[in-house]
């Protein structure tokens, strides 16, 4: 039994190292792999919206920092292309 657990732990460790190596390769470096796991993956979600779903509304702040408007105020007459993103 002791031998079984040693093998299991060893294989698990090797798989972990291999997974991190693959992620490092994909992300560019081990630091980026860590950054991806620590900061990106927790925030990335597929969401529940599908084609045909009602478009959710949300209050948006204008560039002046004080005015507000709603996404759904911009829908109705023509298609609305919504582009989400950040600077970095």
């Amino acid at each position: 039994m002791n031998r079984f657990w040693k093998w299991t732990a060893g294989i698990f460790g090797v798989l972990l190292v291999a997974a991190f190596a693959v992620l490092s390769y994909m992300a560019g470096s081990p630091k980026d792999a860590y950054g991806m796991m620590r900061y990106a993956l927790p925030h990335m979600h597929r969401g529940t919206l599908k084609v045909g779903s009602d478009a959710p509304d949300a209050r948006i702040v204008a560039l002046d920092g004080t005015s507000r408007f709603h996404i759904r105020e911009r829908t109705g007459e023509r298609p609305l292309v919504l582009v989400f993103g950040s600077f970095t």
Partner: protein
Amino acid sequence: MGDVVQIYEDYKARADFLTVYVREAHPTDEWQMKSNVKDDVCYAQPKTLEQRVAIANDFTKRFEFPLPFGIDDMSNAANDAYAAWPERIYIVDESGHIAYRGGIGPFNYRPEEAREWLAARYGVVKHESPKSPTAAAPASTTGAAAAARATTSTPAPADAAK
């Protein structure tokens, strides 16, 4: 990488556009990329709305970003509703339904799919010269900055879309 700005120029006579600035993808205090340093795009993750507004204004001024622009507030309501982070595109049709749901960036962020949706409805807008991804705005890694990249000089008449 597609070109949201060019899509906007091509179809703004037919469709509305809105860019929503969401939480930073690669701030200095989280997962900063080397390319951010190279491009001098170094910001900490905003802790206040004022900081978000300031960064958003830096972005729009730096790239002379032409799309209508808004900022997700500190509750991240828009981001949560659309599962938008770090970058994503949707198209909402006239009836208020999702007509196109883009993939999650950066790997599945494909503005060309939004262009295809618009082209299917309003016609293809052709450009004589190939786009040059490095011609205009300084390269950035993700997000709206990436969308601002490759602002070509090829003018597209508003009536080019049928």
